């Protein structure tokens, strides 16, 4: 099958590239008797969006939280900017599937919370928070409380909070899973714009193959438990075309099909 839009990295444990911001080395994770991850080796480059894709329970969230320093690995090592990870750090920010907003705080305070914890002075914190609130399209909602917002808007708050701390690495765990289909597409386009704009390293988890192909520079397919890297795919989508054209593009559809074939063996 010759597909011009599909370039597969031959070896999963490819040699270290120069621009790897996050390096995952031989990560294994056991929860008691449950072996969640086995021997994960990956690298994530600056300015690129990498998606972790795989069947439910294969350890995507676990891997993301290990990179975030929220969950300790059983063995193996994570390096961010060359330093080994021992816990959470300011160069990484996490976007939660359930938003993790503080219900008693306004949008402004929620977005500025990362800065508040860093003891950034209030005036500067508010200025930064307002800028990112505007960037995610929530201008005018600064004084609203989370329960006054729709699910999609709440996740925008979560994303703005992650951007406001100016981390190098953004970890997003199924950020759009609680968002309806129309908003989801809008989100995907906004996300691409932010990747373009912010030259950060994005590690993204999703269940949707289409979403993964649409937004990713690289897709990592994980096998069912214990999670291992089964395939790495670089979709190479030409993003200069309009969103609708991309979704109709033959190359795009071929990658979707390719991944579907890859995952189908696990579904059966």
């Amino acid at each position, binding site marked *: 099958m010759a597909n011009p839009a599909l370039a597969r990295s031959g070896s999963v444990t490819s040699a270290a590239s120069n621009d790897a911001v996050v390096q995952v080395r031989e990560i294994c994770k056991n929860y008691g008797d449950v072996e969640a991850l086995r021997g994960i080796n990956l690298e994530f480059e600056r300015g690129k969006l990498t998606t972790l894709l795989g069947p439910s329970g294969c350890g995507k969230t676990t891997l993301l939280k290990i990179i975030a320093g929220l969950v300790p690995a059983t063995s193996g090592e994570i390096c961010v900017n060359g330093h080994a990870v021992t816990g959470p750090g300011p160069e990484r920010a996490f976007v939660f599937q359930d938003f993790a907003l503080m219900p008693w705080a306004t949008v402004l305070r929620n977005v500025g919370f*990362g800065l508040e914890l860093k003891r950034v002075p209030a005036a500067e914190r508010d200025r930064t928070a307002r800028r990112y609130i505007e960037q995610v399209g929530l201008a005018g909602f600064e004084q609203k409380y989370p329960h006054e917002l729709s699910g999609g808007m709440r996740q925008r708050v979560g994303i703005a909070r992650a951007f406001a701390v100016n981390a190098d690495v953004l970890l997003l765990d199924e950020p759009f899973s609680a968002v309806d289909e129309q908003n989801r597409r809008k989100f995907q386009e906004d996300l691409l714009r932010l990747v373009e704009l912010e030259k950060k390293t994005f590690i993204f988890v999703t269940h949707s193959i289409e979403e993964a192909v649409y937004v990713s520079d690289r897709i990592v397919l994980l096998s069912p438990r214990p999670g291992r890297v089964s395939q790495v795919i670089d979709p190479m989508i030409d993003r200069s075309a309009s969103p609708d054209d991309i979704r109709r593009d033959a190359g795009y559809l071929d990658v979707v099909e390719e991944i579907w074939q890859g995952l189908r063996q696990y579904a059966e």
Partner: protein
Amino acid sequence: MTLFGTRVPMMASLLFWLLVWEIVGRLDVMFLIPPFTSIVSAGFELVQTGSWQSASMITLRSFLYGMTLAITVGVPLGVLMGRFKVIDNIFGLWVNMFVSAPLSALVPILMILFGMGETTVVVTVFLFAVWIIVLDARAGVMQVPTSLIEMGRSYGASRWTIFTKIILLSALPEILAGIRIGLIRGVKGVVIGQILVSIIGYGELFELYSRSFDMERFWALTMLLFAAAMLLSAGVEHFEKRIEYYAGAR
């Protein structure tokens, strides 16, 4: 409520029963039930007497001491139980036992321990109120979403900051609900304590009125207490509503 096809306001039923009371009272069927109007006028007289005023002061003081103690002990204990398994194991059984125990039965023992005075009443208020405060604070702390704590950690919050800025605030609606129920139980505690000790505050007055068959004043005092308890509960509920806007939404 509708009657013969016309809407009758809720207050109408209260008025109806008061009317029945008044008629029964005037018929003089039982000395226990004086006419309602004379209870009301006895009530007006009562609140002007020095004995009622000083009894009220004593009652209020015992209540406030007991409640302060219950809140300052109950909230921290509940929070600690919610955070630390060890502490939960040590106290869990006792708290759950006492929260539903008939505590009035303990008051005679308290009288032996603390004497026939105000201390016993304060301890009674404390014992009536504290357990539910502990349990609700514990429940509030335990239901804090893990993702909210992980959020704090991922943005570099220390354990103490997570505790003060996330856990306590997140548990606040439950803590307040516990305090509200605690306050109502505390009112029961102060009345039961005083009646059993029967030489201080309202207990002394109740004792006096029932012994001298002064049913007007007896009822007037009872109704004042009912009204005070309802007002207190309504007040706390009002305060809670201002906090609660986020409790339902998380």
